[in-house]
Each structure stands twice: as C-alpha cells, then as structure tokens.
C-alpha cells in the first residue's frame, strides 16, 4: 500500500470534466512531480486527495484511508495549497499555535518550524505585513508542524525568490531523504526537474505519463537518432522496413524509436555510408510540451 494512492479519480464541475479517471501512486522516500499546464486539473486532484473537493468517482487515499478518516490528519499529511491564506490580524506564531492545538502537536513544534522556515524573526508580526514569500514560508511551516510522512505542495515556488526556490528544493529533498513521500505540483517543469524522482504528467484532466523523470520525459523509452548518409532515400526505406519511423529533417533523416547503434547496423547491412550519426536528446521542456500537447484550458 503506497502512502498516496489515487485510483480512477474523476471530478466534474457542471459541464467541465476537471479530472478524468486519474490513477497514480506516490512512493515513500521519493519526490514525485505532479506536472501539467495551467488548468490541467492538478489542484483539483490535490484538493480531492485532501478531502476539500468531493470526487465524482474514484478514490484518493493515504495508506488506504481517506483524508477525513485519518485520526490526526496534520500528523500524517502536510499540505501547502496554492492559495494558502491566513487571518491578516493574527501573527505567524499565533497561527501556528492554533494549528498546533488542532493537530494535537506539542507547542514546542511552533518554534521548531518557525526556525526551519527562517521566520523566527518575524513570528510576532501580523501576517498582513508579510510578503508573498513570507506567507509561503508560513504555509510550509504549517504543513511541517506535524512532521508528516506525506508532504503535498501545490505550486510551492510561487512567490519565492531564487534563494527561496533553492531552499524549497533542498527542503523537499531532505524530506524525501528521511523516507517520506513528497508530491509537488507545478506547471513549470524547470522548477521541479532538479528535485523530483518521479513524475505524473496530466493535461485536460487525463493522465499523460507516469514513471521516473527519465522514463516519462527523458526520452528513455523512445530514442531518436539524427542521421545523414550518401543515400538517404535507400536508408529511409531500409529503416522503415525494419519498423522504425523516419522523418525528413533538414539535410538528413530523423529516426524515431531507434538508437544510433540500431541505425548504424541497418546502414551497414545496406552498405550505405554514413556522414553523420547522432543521438538527439529531447529537452525536458520539449518532451513535456509534446506530452501535454501544450494544452491549457
């Protein structure tokens, strides 16, 4: 049983199918990136997982239990949602005190998490005077209060400056290194690519890919080779005959689903001299764009 299991999850808002039969797991000790363009259904999925939105169909569970079935939810799951809001007239310390009471966490955790997110110096200021980055840190402090085994972060780098983003990456890696499961959503692949192990890619509410970052977006399952020869037409026929997809690419050919070694063998068999043979690595962004179709809703 995985720490987070989403099974055939669907959510419809009126005529809009926000999430469609989504299935994926988040494994312990790994950071899973939940990726998709704006409007793909990421936040709806996370909110269904957290019991804030009622699924139309399917389940979303933590160790087999729905969020509201957890005895002390914040001791099991820490969540930072995109629109984390606080009472503007309450100080950060008092906000955390309330959260500690609700979660039955020891009061000393308040100072510990304030230290962890580097907000101790501003802890007794009212939140209305906080910058967006400080609010984001306070939201993270709230999520960490119960030292949860699962951390869910929805677009966590919003409002953070570059040092803040680096800090966030280090934080999720530290959390995963302790054997905890981390699920991070983002519409910007570049912001999470350095810190995730696995990815779940969705677009228009549907699953478009899941697995390790390399498997899903690194082109690991679909090699592409650029080749140029003295007889491209003959080589293309030979490659196609062996089941490879071949496209004209400028002055040469682009062979989809074949490594340079495979292309080289075919060329050798056909006695076609090659003048260029290169593996083409798709950029992560390019792969992500292709997978999601560059779609937004």
């Amino acid at each position, binding site marked *: 049983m995985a720490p987070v299991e989403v099974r055939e999850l669907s959510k419809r808002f009126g005529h809009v199918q926000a999430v469609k039969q989504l299935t994926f797991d988040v494994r312990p000790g790994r950071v899973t990136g939940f990726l998709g363009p704006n409007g793909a259904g990421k936040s*709806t999925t996370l*909110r269904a997982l957290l*019991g804030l939105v009622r699924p139309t169909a399917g389940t979303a569970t933590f160790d087999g239990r729905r969020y509201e079935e957890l005895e002390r939810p914040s001791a099991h799951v820490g969540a930072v949602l995109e629109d*984390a*809001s606080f009472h503007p007239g309450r100080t950060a310390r008092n906000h955390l005190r309330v959260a500690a*009471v609700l*979660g039955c966490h020891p009061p000393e955790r308040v100072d510990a998490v304030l230290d962890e997110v580097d907000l101790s110096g501003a802890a007794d200021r009212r939140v209305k005077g906080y910058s967006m980055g400080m609010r984001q840190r306070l939201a993270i402090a709230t999520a960490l209060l119960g030292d949860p085994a699962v951390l869910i972060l929805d677009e966590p780098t919003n409002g953070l400056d570059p040092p803040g983003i680096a800090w966030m990456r280090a934080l999720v890696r530290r959390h995963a290194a302790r054997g905890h499961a981390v699920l991070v959503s983002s519409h910007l692949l570049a912001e999470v690519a350095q810190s995730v192990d696995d990815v779940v890619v969705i677009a228009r509410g549907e699953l478009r890919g899941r697995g390790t970052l390399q498997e899903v977006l690194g082109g690991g399952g679909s090699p592409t080779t650029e080749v140029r020869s003295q007889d491209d037409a003959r080589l293309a026929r030979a490659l196609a005959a062996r089941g490879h997809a071949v496209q004209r690419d400028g002055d040469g050919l682009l062979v989809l689903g074949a490594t340079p070694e495979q292309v080289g063998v075919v060329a050798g068999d056909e006695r076609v001299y090659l003048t260029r043979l290169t593996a083409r690595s798709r950029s992560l962004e390019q792969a992500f764009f292709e997978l999601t179709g560059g779609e937004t809703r």
Partner: protein
Amino acid sequence: MSVLLEAELLKLRTTRTFAALVGAALALSLLVVGLTSALSDTLTRSDVNSLFAADFTGLFILLLGIMGMAGEWRHRTITGTVLAAPWRLRLLGAKVLSYAAAGALLSLIVTVTIMLVGTVILSIRGEVTPDAAKLVDILWRNLVVAALLGALGVGIGGLIRNQVVAIVGTLAVSFVLEPTLFALVPEVARFAPTQGAPSGIVQVDALGGTIDRLSAGVAVLVMLGWIALFFAAAGARLRRFDLV
C-alpha cells in the same frame, strides 16, 4: 470536540476583533446607562431593571458570531481550517459553542460593568437601586441571551458566506423587519430571532413596545429552534461545498 473548541477560543483570543467588540459594546452600554442614570428625573424600579437588562451587547455578539464564521470565507482561511479539522459538522459545532461562550463572556464583562457604574450613579443621586437577587437575575438572563445570539451568529455566517451581505442582512432584519413586525403583528414578532425571543428571556419589552412577551423558557426554546435551523442549513451547505 474539545480540541476544536480550544482552537476556536484561541483564534478568538489572537485577533483584535473580540477586544474591539467588547470595547465598543462596553462604551455604548456605559454611555446609555451613565446618561440615563445621571440625567433622568425619576427612575422607577422597573425602569432601572430594564436599563441594566438592556446591555446593548446582543447586536455586537450576533455580529461577532457572523464574523467568526463568514470571516473564514472572507479571509479564505476556511481551506486551512478544514485541512486541519476535516470533520466539517464537528467544526461548525465547535464554532457554535465557542461563540456562545464568547458571547456570554462579552455580556458578563459589559453587564457587570454597567451594573457597577449604574448602581454607583443611582446611589449618589439617592435613587432606587436593584437588590443583589435582582441583579443576579438580570445577569443570568443577559448571559443566556448573549450565548444564544453568539451561536445564532455562527449559523447565519455559515449559511450566508458573504460577510458584508450577512451583516447588512442581519441589521436589516433586526432594525427594519422585526420592528415592522412588532408594529403590525406583535404576536408573530415575539418569536423573531434577534429581538423578539431575546426580549422574552430578559423580560424587557423589545423596542419599547408592550407586547405579550414569551415566557423565558419558551423564548429559550424558540431561540434554540432558530439556532438549530441555521445550524442545519449551514451544516448541509458546508458538507456539500467543494473548497476549490
């Protein structure tokens, strides 16, 4: 439930809203009681009892309850609250109880203060003052009304989530609709939630009228009925609501 209650009471203590409302209710009540005690020509025992019973906290407490619940949507803190305590009906129940307690506390502070100030002024003027038993009787009635209005405010704020609409609507009911009912159909108005039934509990004529008030016990039951109605409606809405 005790954890939810403790958290709600801590929330109340950690913003300035509660203190501000206590201050406003106290200032207004003291002003009215002070001026009336000092300037009225002659006050009968009934007048004095009415003066101490009308501590002007009811409206403030009703608004406090509305702000406590509707404020969760206004400040968009409801998501964090439900994340921390996903049992939505229990959460609403805890808010009802905590604002009932807050209402009683606010009323205690204001009623005791105006009783002290009013009694001192009346004594100096040589006017009649209520005995201790009467003061205690007035006090508990005020506390019960305050607790019930605090709870009712949470129910209203849970049903009407736009804080401004909830407050303006409640003021309209309290200052326009209910007085109109008192004028036209007083036998119906005495069941009304913001002034009618409370006047039966404190046994003071609402709006200076002379209607046949409900008995205190019946008035409490009527108020509990209003609270149950709003709680059920707000709870049903809260349970179904997707927090997107």
